[in-house]
């Protein structure tokens, strides 16, 4: 029987207190910047069955409130005893860790010999060994290149540290001191959680505690179902792309979603998403129907619609994911997964887009959907010292919202990153920041404008300066606008802009720069929402005064004529009438010319044909065949399903081993 609703609220506050205490303990005592600045960690309390029932809100990443540890709990030999702490970082053991730098820990908590909960969480290690520093690169193709992996096992047994195991880790990673420092802090947080849970059990009694945590999940489920009930039933199809599926092929990676809302539950069918890729942007889920990585976009939608929602596993219950095997959303061992965060960013856009079809009046347009941290490795010409430093994140704005413009610079699902003050960068790194701020005209035009992307430009002074910027995307396919709003401007990376030597680098994520080189990064702008011709001219004028929109764009995109610092009402009205008359009818989305052109070849039919062909192939053939079909499509005058099938027929002709799948 459920506990009473007053006790439930009190228990909820105590659970939150426990997890916040754990998170602050970790944050306070950890060593690495990944924890201190990026806050790439999570903290949770989980039930004996592995369900997350409480998380902190003040600190940490946003991805794991619905994480289910059930698969890994049983993989540990010998059951659990007081003082044990188990861990894993293997993406293919239970699908809890989702790339190898993420180390998950869990500690059983007992009351009178009975297991009552686990404290748990994850921390992103800056490096876990493997082929490249920091363990992550798009170019890696199998998990073994991505560092040392530990299947679920005990790091502490009855309070005793397994030093041999620890030594194995320390021997294989590039910054053992830092990993160990963070791990110690993490263990401190687990112990804090244990103490807090014991206090709760003492306060509420073990029966109430057990039932209460179940009720907390029922509460979250109830809230999620209430939100779904308020949405119209129906099937909503949407697809979105990452610009490049791999460094070698650079074809788009398509993600597809059919969101079916039926009463108070929903199905998310990802059929039609790309095959598993020969690069590291695969998302390991094990095909689990409630996998948290597939539902991160859903958490955002639910929280946005009800900011009082409980964040725990109960939220995931009304949602069922269909994740076909051997695809980018359910890759088979040993596919590389290190850079899955790039795909995860697009998966969130995908979910936002599908929900925007279901409840257009309550959803924003697409956020920038790409954030990458720029790192510089250079030599100080005075001291001769080698300096490695994270410069600034290049981020973009949020999408236009129902009630207001999208925030500039960052926002929506990329709210957590902090920048580094220009003064600190220049004092520590021998580069000159030439410009840092917002990129004018980058926000998608709309009645509510998309947020502007950031602009970072700097000059280097030393030969062989290495620039890296992981997770770069949206230089080709723009953040989409909705309801008449226009897509945001794509991101870019340019060497020596506005000079004869200008070089457009697009999604390049590593570069060696030479003395005098200027590097410019733009973040993407958020999508616009609503017809820009309906935007109050006064708001357009304000944007022009504030440098968010140029005079030219005010005219061209908004039909607003500004002269002598004021709106010319008559000319604006007539220009707007002309623009309305000339406008093409617009659909729900505006994708920008790049995607429109692309989809002239790669229509939905063409993708259906491709999906059907690839789904029939053995997994190890899929990426190869996809790439060859793309070659053929790129060479063909016209696209469509027939061209896809013809291309496959030719490939099968060349490779008799796969003819049987034709």
């Amino acid at each position: 029987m459920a506990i009473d609703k007053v006790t439930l609220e009190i228990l909820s506050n105590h659970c939150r207190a426990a997890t916040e205490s754990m998170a602050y303990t970790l944050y306070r005592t950890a060593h690495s910047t990944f924890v201190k600045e990026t806050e790439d960690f999570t903290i949770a309390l989980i039930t004996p069955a592995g369900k997350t029932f409480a998380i902190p809100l003040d600190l940490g990443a946003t991805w794991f409130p619905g994480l289910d540890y059930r698969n890994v709990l049983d993989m540990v030999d010998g059951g659990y005893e007081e003082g044990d702490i188990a861990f894993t970082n293997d993406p293919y053991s239970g699908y809890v860790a989702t790339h190898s730098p993420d180390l998950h820990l869990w500690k059983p908590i007992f009351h009178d010999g009975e297991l009552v909960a686990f404290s748990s969480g994850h921390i992103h290690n800056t490096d876990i060994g493997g082929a490249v520093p920091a363990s992550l690169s798009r170019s890696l193709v199998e998990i073994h290149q991505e560092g040392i992996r530990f299947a679920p096992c005990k790091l502490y047994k009855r309070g005793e540290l397994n030093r041999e195991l620890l030594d194995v880790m320390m021997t294989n990673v590039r910054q053992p001191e830092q990993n160990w420092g963070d791990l110690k802090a993490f263990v401190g947080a687990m112990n804090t959680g244990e103490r807090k849970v014991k206090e709760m059990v003492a306060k509420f009694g073990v029966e109430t505690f057990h039932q209460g945590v179940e009720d907390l999940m029922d509460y979250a489920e109830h809230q999620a179902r209430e939100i779904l009930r308020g949405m119209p039933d129906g099937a909503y199809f949407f697809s979105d792309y990452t610009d490049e599926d791999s460094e070698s092929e650079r074809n788009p990676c398509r993600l597809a979603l059919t969101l079916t809302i039926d009463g108070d539950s929903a199905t998310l069918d990802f059929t039609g998403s790309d095959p598993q890729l020969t690069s590291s942007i695969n998302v390991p889920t094990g095909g689990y129907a409630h996998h948290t990585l597939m539902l991160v976009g859903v958490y955002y939608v639910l929280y946005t619609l009800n900011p009082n929602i409980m964040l725990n596993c109960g939220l995931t219950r009304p949602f069922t994911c269909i994740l076909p095997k051997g695809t980018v959303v359910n890759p088979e061992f040993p596919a590389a997964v290190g850079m899955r965060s790039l795909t995860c960013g697009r998966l969130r856009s995908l979910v936002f887009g599908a929900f925007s079809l279901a409840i257009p009046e309550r959803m924003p347009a697409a956020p920038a959907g790409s954030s990458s941290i720029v790192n510089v490795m250079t030599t100080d010409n005075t001291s001769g010292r080698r300096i490695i430093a994270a410069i600034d994140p290049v981020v973009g704005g949020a999408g236009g919202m129902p009630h207001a413009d999208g925030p500039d610079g960052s926002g929506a699902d990329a709210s957590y990153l902090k920048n580094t003050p220009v003064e600190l960068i220049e004092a520590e790194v021998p580069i000159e920041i030439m410009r840092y701020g917002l990129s004018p005209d980058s926000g998608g035009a709309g009645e509510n404008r998309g947020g502007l992307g950031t602009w970072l430009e700097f000059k280097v002074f030393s030969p062989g300066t290495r620039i890296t910027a992981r997770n770069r995307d949206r230089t080709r396919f723009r953040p989409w606008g909705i309801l008449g709003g226009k897509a945001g401007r794509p991101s870019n990376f340019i060497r020596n802009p506005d000079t004869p030597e200008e070089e457009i680098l697009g999604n390049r994520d590593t570069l060696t720069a030479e003395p005098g080189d200027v590097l410019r990064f733009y973040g993407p702008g958020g999508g616009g929402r609503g017809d820009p011709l309906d935007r109050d001219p006064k708001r357009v004028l304000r944007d022009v005064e504030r440098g968010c929109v140029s005079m030219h764009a005010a005219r061209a995109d908004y039909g607003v004529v500004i002269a002598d610092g004021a709106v010319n009402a008559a000319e604006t009205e007539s220009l707007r009438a002309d623009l309305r008359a000339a406008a093409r009818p617009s659909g729900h989305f505006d994708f920008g010319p790049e995607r429109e052109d692309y989809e002239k070849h790669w229509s939905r039919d063409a993708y259906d044909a491709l999906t059907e062909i690839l789904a029939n192939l053995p997994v190890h053939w899929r990426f190869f065949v996809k790439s060859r079909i793309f070659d053929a499509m790129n060479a063909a005058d016209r696209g469509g399903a027939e061209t896809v099938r013809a291309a496959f027929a030719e490939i099968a002709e060349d490779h008799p081993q796969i003819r049987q799948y034709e």
Partner: protein
Amino acid sequence: MAYRVGVDIGGTFIDFCVFDTATWELSTLKVLTTPADPGAEVIEGMRRLSEKYGIDPAAVESFIHGTTVGVNTVIQRKGARMALFTTENFSDVLEVARLRMPESYSLFSTRPEPLITRDRVFGLKERIRADGSIHTPLDPGSVRDALDRATAGGVEGVIVSLLHGWRNPAHEEQVADILRREAPDLFVFTSHEIWPVIREYERTTTAIINGYVHPRVAAYLGSLQDALKESGVTAEPLVTKSNGGVMSAELGKTSCVNMVLSGTASGVIGGAFVARSCGVENAITLDIGGTSADVAVVIDGAPQYGMGEKIGEFPLYIPSVSVTSIGDGGGSIARVDDFGVLKVGPESAGSDPGPACYGQGGDQPTITDAFAVCGFLGHHALAYESVSLDMDKARAAVGTLARRLDRSVEETAEAIIQVTVSSMYMEINKLTARYGIDLRDFALVTFGGAGPMLGCFLAKELHMRQVVIPTTPGVTSALGGLVADIRNDFVKTVFATAADAIGSIPADFEELSARALDWLHSEQHHAGTHTLHPSADMRYTGQSFEIEVPLDPDWLVNGNLAAILDAFHRRHDEVYAFSDSDAEVQIMNLRLVVAGAIEKPTLKALPPADGPADPVRDVQVWFGGEQITVPLYERDRLRAGQTLAGPAVIAQSDTTSCIPDGFMGTVDAHGSIILALQEVS
């Protein structure tokens, strides 16, 4: 005969706290705030003080004032219209801020609109490098262009904040000169004069808050000065500062940023003073008002300081008493959501209309109504007789929830109290984890109108063993002003490895000391003793945050690198539970606090009495799921040394204290009640 008067002006009341320096008599007074007419309430208060207590305004030797005018100007966005002159290509410093958004899970999370919008931010042609050398000399033409455009947009003042201005203020000074020459009507503040630290956003926004509140604060302090003169007070008024000290009101007109958190800081100083007078060195101060609760940590008798305290939605980067504001106050509203769960806050009935039981038009059930329904309130005139209690309205408001929870009205009221306590428990828990402290070593010092009502319940939940309720909990902030030192902070950004910096440290310290003493003597005319408290903001190379390390002046004078490093490693270990004596260490800032001692009043001793205190009568309260009879004490009648045991209710004109079972109280020599939580089985 001489008096020292502390005055704290809040949203609803002005609290006066008067010490008679001959008799150590403490008198208090509350006057309703008249926001439209600053100064009027001071005149009214002085008139009432002289009427009620026979206090001659001419005998007031010091008048110390804490005010929320600064913070309210920011919250209500009623400050000056200004322009920001900054470095070209970096004009989005306010829009981008530090990038991070306030809420991580919401697609609608937004940054507050900057106090200076982008159309009034102008980039100047100039550039200084990180080492202070000139990359591009200032183009005076670009200053004049910016000035033309700023004045066309109608501004009252200009903030000048240029890249690396902390390292080399030459360009900021040149710009200010041009502005003062060519636009003498505009006020001008430069970032290096307000608080010269590295980090452009933090330095700029701090200078902006200074300018933003400047006209209103200056006008307010001006009318305060006039009002005092009119009342016959000849002493130069002092204002309390965010750093817990005081300075002259005259200086407050320009150093506005230093008094923005004047009110909250003096509450903590007052709480710490009371704690100390009871022999308590480690305390959590809890000041609960109508809409929120302010919590602060006092360790070894000293409040904790921090940077980045919030002023409304904006962070302020000058050293301030660290106060965490929680959205639970006496006016917080309880509701039941659609799953049937009882929630309290963050919506508040505030002071207008206030709790339903105040009978001023409120009909929503608040925390205060819950206490009223349980029978804790209404035994004594509330809020200095300005409010009378309407029990029926309280019951009706709480009753709306009772039906939905399927509980009696009393049970519902108790549930509201329990939920409130659990949510405050959660917030204070975060604070203790942040500081890494064990609350069992701390006493809860609880004040403000609603503090003593909730304090004991909360202490129990937090496993704290001691609660202190000051003699006059309603005027602790005003008391804080009376006991604060004249205090100011000075900073010099060093930003070098400790080894590189050590050569210039003795000279830097000498410079800071000279500035500090000049401020104390020439500007504040302080004749008494003083102390200097140097510290440094330090970090391991590669860290992106620093910690403040208190230093011994001798180490700085002698350039004792080993001692400074050792202090840093030990401090790092205290704060973060690890240190690395082999790692390279950077000194970001050298800081100096000068404190000119003000003679501390000693709280007057109460007449002693032995044994248990005498209750005035028994009252019925609902507690622990049943109606019980508990003794009611009147605070005025308590005598030093008397004891009382929970459950009990203590009434006084500025608050009601609720003492649950398990607490044993003793009245200390000065009238504070010290409650110890007995081990209950």
